[in-house]
């Protein structure tokens, strides 16, 4: 298959201005990533700055509740509170290698923006983060964090003021500064080579899972469950297991309020293949190909497209796609709080909700790894408002 293509998905559907930059990026990635020097630097930062390896935690109380053996892959313990830093550190190092001095990116939940500033500061790069005005309100605490860390946070008030609009605007801004500035894409979306780069940097998750579960259980898991939108935490967890068909892979997207009208982010349920932000993806759109806004309370899942690789994996049936509604998600937050003392991110709570909803189906000995992608500190106000009003 052609580089950057995942079946019919993927590609490089960008303006000519950016093509040379993408080619340069791909070359830089292929040149530097495999070197032991790069691996050492990245490995060192992942270990000492980000806190890897993250634990694989046997959630005894939660397991009892859902009737099988559940391990949580603790990406919430990564510095900054989510898996996003794995990728940000990798790309920031790459940016240094390319001799660029600035990072731009967009963010919805703020987790990726935060990770980008952190990685930028460590590597001595300036950072500008584009963020939809609506998301800036919803994730106000992460905006504060980014600003405190020295990022320029630029509000995006076009469209609905959410992630889709921020990505569009960042792509535009990038065309004007791509020679000095790297667009640090935050998920396995965008034009090639981004999906590949991001998945590669995130695949440390699955590599660790593999080693850890063998040590603990002496066998691979029966199932890996991950939430997702672009798919970076899911692919990060899945990639090491894709060739082993015995390991079932489950992807949970944002159901929003309902699958009807424009109240969902469930692109695998109500979207179809289309081209957005540089690639063919499964995407929410109308009959004529106009992209539709997504809707979910989890800002980090609020994107109308699924990345090319996860799109292809779901189409082929290798990965099963599910969704969780907002209401179920908030309940799942509570369950995890009470059983394990952990406040999950609303995104992560989608995967948790899947486990709760399907608990009748699990067999007692079934071994499930839930990729616990992030902590819920950023969602604290939304969660409190949901349960206690105001």
């Amino acid at each position, binding site marked *: 298959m052609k580089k950057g293509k995942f079946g019919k998905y993927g590609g490089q559907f960008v303006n000519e201005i950016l093509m040379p*930059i993408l080619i340069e990026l791909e070359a830089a990635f292929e040149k530097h990533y495999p070197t032991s020097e790069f691996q050492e630097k990245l490995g060192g930062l992942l270990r000492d700055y980000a806190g890897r390896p993250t634990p694989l935690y046997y959630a005894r109380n939660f397991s009892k509740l859902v009737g099988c053996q559940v391990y949580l892959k603790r990406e919430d313990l990564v510095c900054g509170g989510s898996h996003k830093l794995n990728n940000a550190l990798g790309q920031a190092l790459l940016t240094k290698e390319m001799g660029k001095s600035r990072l731009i990116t967009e963010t919805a939940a703020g987790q990726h923006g935060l990770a980008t500033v952190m990685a930028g500061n460590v590597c001595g790069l300036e950072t500008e983060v584009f963020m939809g005005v609506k998301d800036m309100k919803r994730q106000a605490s992460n905006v504060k964090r980014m600003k405190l860390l020295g990022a320029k946070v630029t509000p995006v008030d076009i469209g609905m003021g959410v992630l889709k609009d921020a990505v569009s605007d960042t792509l535009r801004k990038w065309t004007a500064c791509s020679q000095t500035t790297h667009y640090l894409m935050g998920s396995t979306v965008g034009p090639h080579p981004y999906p590949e780069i991001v998945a590669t940097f995130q695949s440390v998750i699955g590599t660790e899972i593999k080693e850890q579960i063998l040590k603990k259980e002496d066998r691979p898991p029966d199932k890996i469950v991950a939430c997702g939108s672009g798919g970076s935490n899911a692919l990060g967890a899945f990639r090491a297991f894709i060739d082993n068909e015995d390991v079932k892979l489950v992807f949970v997207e944002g159901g929003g309020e309902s699958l009807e009208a424009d109240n969902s982010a469930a692109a695998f349920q109500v979207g179809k293949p289309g081209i957005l932000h540089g690639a063919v993806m499964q995407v929410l759109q109308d009959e004529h190909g106009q992209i539709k806004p997504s809707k979910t309370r989890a800002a980090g899942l609020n994107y109308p497209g699924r990345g090319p690789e996860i799109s292809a994996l779901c189409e082929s049936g290798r990965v099963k796609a599910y969704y969780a509604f907002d209401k179920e998600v908030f309940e799942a937050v509570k369950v995890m709080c009470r059983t394990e003392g952990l406040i999950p991110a609303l995104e992560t709570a989608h995967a948790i909700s899947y486990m709760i909803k399907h608990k009748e189906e699990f067999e007692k000995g079934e071994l499930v790894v839930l990729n616990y992608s992030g902590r819920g500190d950023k969602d604290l106000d939304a969660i409190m408002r949901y349960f206690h009003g105001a």
Partner: protein
Amino acid sequence: MELEEKFQELKMKREGAHMPHVYYGDPNEDFSLKLIETLTANGADIIEFGIPFSDPTADGPTFQAVCERALENGVTPPKCIQGIRKVREKGIENPIVVTTYYNIPYVMGIGAFLNEIKEAGAQAIIVPNVPVEEADVLLAEGKKSGIHTIFQIAPTTTEDRLKKIADIASGFLYIINVEGVTGARESLADSTLKLVQRVRRHTNMPLLAGFGISNRQQASAVVATGADGVIAGSAYAKVYEKNLEKPEETLPEIARLAAQIKQGCIEGYRRRQGN
């Protein structure tokens, strides 16, 4: 009229080409038709006919707002194609180059889409988010339906790519003046001039330069260095967006602007030839 004919005609007249860019349906279809009429009546040689898209990532704030308004008003790709027909029905014969983002033809089916616009009266297509690497289908289907695929060349384009693009291009080449998105700009960088000269070494194909052109001086300067014409889009939208209630009232101003930019194209052509 075919693009080749138009460029032949302009050569005879010793004029640079002016291609205004209009997104159809903003603020309504009727106005778009009048706008196109006004432009062609005031020196527009080719019409870049935009089909609005929800996420126009190569467009600046002016055209983003244009697309958003048009979509809110219920404009759809089929209505746009119908719009091309209406232009032709008005007796306007200038070549029409359709511009849209790739998802629009992708969803309809590339071949079907190209056939439809051809049938409606278009001569070419620009898809700003399809670089040569992804253009196989577009080129193949374009050949079948007789629609030129127009490619863009940017300041970042390497010699390597320039050659590749020049090899497969037909109709004309779209020179992106600046690193950035569409939108009127105060001054044009020297880089445009250098880029035109650089491209000229690879091809004799007509070169139209766009992004950031909003007045006679810019048009003149760009054509003088070797471009065969200029593209101006946001500059016109910026005029009528000031009066969206009654955009027709801005048509005289638009007419004057079009005439001036065309004048720049003519001047530039003659300056280039040294008289």
